[in-house]
Every structure is written in structure tokens, then in C-alpha cells.
């Protein structure tokens, strides 16, 4: 029986240790938040950049419609997952303002990608051009925000 008790104890210990790793409701530490914001903005920049390339090249007739539809949907999905995870974080009090700015910028990025996805699905050229303009703007804004936050960290 001793072996079984020990086994159960070991399993419980592992579960407890594992449970400690699960994210709790407490606020992130400052450095933890910075890592998160850097990664999330990086993903957003990547998604917007990809969509930019997709729309530009579609306008030049380089890419097939079906491919662009799926590819834009992929970038939207990637960004959505990442943005949702970020928005559920509780930032440290000192970074509340920066966090708000990041969340707003992410919201604009998601909107721009949504518009791009809709335009690609509908095959609407004019909507595509408008979406491309918005995506470019969001891309530049996010790059800028990311640089400033990295700068502030130094």
C-alpha cells in the first residue's frame, strides 16, 4: 500500500505545481506585461504586414482569389487569438495608460483586417483598395507604438 500512497502523493504534487503555473486573476508584473505587449504587438504587425502584401499583390494580379481569401482569414484568426489573450490580462497600475493605447490599437488592427477579409471574400476591388489603405495605416501606427513602448522600457 505504501507504494500506492506515494504514487497518489506524487500525482497530487504534480497537479498542484501545475496549478500554480496557471494564470490567476492577479495583475501581471511589469516585465511580464512588457513581454506580453511586445509579443502581441509583434503578432499584430506580422498579421497586418502579411495582409498588406496579400492585398498589394492581389491588386497587381499576382495572387488567386481563393488563396487571398483564406490567407487573409488566417491572419485575422492569428491576430484575434492573440488580441483576445492580451485583452484579458490585467496590466500593472503603472502601465494602465500604455495598456489602453495598445488595446485601442489592436482594436483598430482587428477592424482593418475584418474589412480586408470581407473585401477579399466579396471580390470587391474598391473595398479592397480602401481596406489596403486602412491596413497600411494600422501597420504604421502599430510599428510606431511598438517602437515607443520598447523605447520606454529602456
Amino acid at each position, binding site marked *: 500500500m505504501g507504494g500506492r500512497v506515494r504514487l497518489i502523493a506524487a500525482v497530487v504534487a504534480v497537479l498542484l505545481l501545475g496549478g500554480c503555473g496557471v494564470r490567476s486573476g492577479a495583475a501581471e508584473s511589469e516585465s511580464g506585461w512588457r513581454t506580453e505587449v511586445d*509579443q502581441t504587438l509583434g503578432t499584430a*504587425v506580422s498579421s497586418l504586414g*502579411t495582409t498588406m502584401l496579400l492585398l498589394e499583390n492581389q491588386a497587381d494580379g499576382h*495572387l488567386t482569389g481563393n488563396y487571398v481569401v483564406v*490567407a487573409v482569414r*488566417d491572419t485575422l484568426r492569428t491576430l484575434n487569438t492573440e488580441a483576445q489573450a492580451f485583452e484579458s490580462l490585467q496590466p500593472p497600475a503603472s502601465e494602465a495608460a500604455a495598456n489602453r493605447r495598445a488595446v485601442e490599437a489592436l482594436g483598430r488592427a482587428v477592424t482593418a483586417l475584418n474589412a480586408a477579409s470581407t473585401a477579399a471574400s466579396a471580390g470587391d476591388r474598391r473595398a479592397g483598395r480602401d481596406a489596403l489603405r486602412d491596413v497600411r495605416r494600422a501597420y504604421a501606427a502599430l510599428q510606431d507604438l511598438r517602437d515607443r513602448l520598447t523605447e520606454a522600457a529602456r
Partner: protein
Amino acid sequence: MKRLLALALGILTAIGGFVDIGDMVVNAQVGARFDLSLGLVVAVGVLGICVFAEMSGRVAVCSKRATFDLVRERLGPRVGLLNLVASLIVTALTFVAEIGGVALALALVSSVNDLLIIPLVGLLVWLVLWRAKFSLMENVLGLLGLALVVFAVALWKLGPDWSELGHQLATADKPADETWTTYAYYSVALFGAAMTPYEVFFFSSGGVEEGWTEKDLGTMRANVFVGFPLGGLLSLAIAGCASVALGPLAIDVASLSQVALPVGIALGKIGLAVALLGFVAATFGAACETGLSTGYALAQYFGFQWGKYVRPGEATRFHVVLVVATFLAVGVLMTGVDPILVTEASVVGSAVALPLTYFPILVVANDIDYMGAHRNGLLANFLGTIYLVLVFVAAVAAIPLLVITGMGA
């Protein structure tokens, strides 16, 4: 003339069959983030798989025993079982990733949601495993996989600074905005992507399937030493394309569509279509290989009849395993798990599981009892020992690096 044709066919299928979803995804990711600064690792990995595959192919020719037979003979039933479980997990993960990859590639062609395509792909894979002749399956899919050469053309068309690329290839340096731990993590991932255990199970079992004799040793070596490195060049071309087209915009590769994007940019719709064809063929081919490999590993551990060289009715358990494996893989994919994530896990898992398969083959390749006159020479043992050390280092480092870097984030 006929022999020459057979030789050419073998080499071409080796090139086309070399690249699978792990190579495509990891190389594109690394290319976009690190440019070609990890190119040396790809070269080391490709040479490694050459050394390993040549040894296990030679063992298969001389002893008529495939890799997992020898794993159990040399490691015994307990450690052999541990290896079986580890290898099966990795191979099954790769199988899942490949089927998912086929579906993703078909989704890019048709814009139908990949969840709707997955069951169809599963059914097709199983039909091929059940019905198609071994050589037909290997040759057709391998030749179609050659479509990936379009990445090399695209790279040339994108017109990178070749001297800069060459410099990155030759030196082991990293871009300033990456840390050495992520560099090490991606080194292990690339190494694992190049040296997956299933490739060896499949290669050696394939030798038995096709009834290689000592006369075929030359052909086998040509396939390995010409075909695999050229396949490795395709991997590098994928990395180069991602580096030139996606790197400057700070794009991280997180989906298969992004891997194909540089080809579309460089070569337009036709190039894109060829690349997608290559994706489908390469992933479908690898799906068949990994599916068979799960059956090979199990059958060779427990000793029941395996292989497509006998009628399905003579290897019923083997075919039951294939059905179950395909069913499980489709089931896992239908949960909506991202095949790209599965791919990343499988290449790191490969690096962990490799030593237990590599070591017994190295020993048996020296054993005069099995090998007779064809046992390892000085060069094979020299390279074999270097890789034995490398393989162990990569296996030990893989999990800690995965945890520290958070899967390379």
C-alpha cells in the same frame, strides 16, 4: 539506359519526398526571423539524415531487418517499448500535422474551410495505404513534390543580395533583435525537422518492401547522397524566400498561406499554383509515409506481419493499425487544433526521440554478424560518432529550450 532511368527516378523522388510540413513551416519561420543565419544547422541536419539513412538502408539490405526490429534486439523489450511509445507519439503527431497540411493546402486552392476537407483527406490517405502499390505511391508523390523547386526559382526571381545570403549561410550569427536562446531553440527545431525518426523507419522498411539486394546498394547511396542534399536545398530556398519577402516587414510565419506568399509575389498566379501543388504532394506523400511508419514501428516491435509487399489479407493487423491511426489523426484534427502548432511540437519531439533509434542502428551497422563485408568503414564511423554526440545533445537540450523560450516566442 533502364538502370540510369531508375537511378534518376530514385533521386528525383528522394528530392521531392524530402520536404514535409515540418521542413516547410520551420524553415519559413526561421527564414523570416533569422534570415539564413541558421543555414548551417540545416546543412548539419541534412548531412545527419544522410548518414543515418544510409546506415539503416545498408542494414536493411544486408540483414533484411528494418530499423525497429533492431531497436528491440539491441535495446531489449523495456527500453525498446519506451522508444516505441516515444516514436509513436512523435510519428503520430507528424501524421496529424501532414494530414492537416494537405487540408490547409487544399483550402488555399479551393477556399473551402479545412475542417470540411480533413475527413476527405483522411479517407484518401487510407485508400492509398490500403490499395496503392508501394513504388507507385512513392514515385508519383515524390515526383509531384518536385513542384517545390518553384521556391528556388522564386528566390532567384526575388533577386536577393547573393553575397549577403552567402555570408549569412557561412557564419553562425544571429540578428540583433533575437536572443541566443531562441537561436538555440530554432536550431534544435531545424535539426529535428531534418532528422525525423519516421524518415528512417520508412526508408529502411521501404528497402525491405522493395526487396533491395546488395546490388542496389549503389542506387540507395545515390538516392541518399544526391537526393537528400538537393531536397535540403529546397528547404533552404523556402527559408531564403521567407527571409527576402517576409523578413523586412517583420512578419512571423504562423500559417501555411504565409509560406507560399513569396512565390506568389515573385512568380504570380502560376507560380503560386505550382507551389500549392507542391504543398499538397509533399504533405500527402509525407502523410502516407508517417501513416505507414506507425504501422511499421508497432509491427516490428511486436513481430506481426507488416508491409505492402504482401497482400493486405496477409498483414491484417498491420492494416488495422493503419485504419486506427488514420481515424485517430482525423479525429484529433477535427477538434480544430492548429496543424502548424502540431508541426512545431512534432519537430521538437523528433529531436527528443531520435537517440534511442539512432544508437542501435550505429551499433548494428558495425556488427559483422549482420553486415558481413558491408559494415561501417572509417568515414561512416567517424561521422556516425559525431552525430551520436550531436543527437544526444539536441535531445537533452530540446525540452528545456522549449520551456525557456515558450516555443520560440
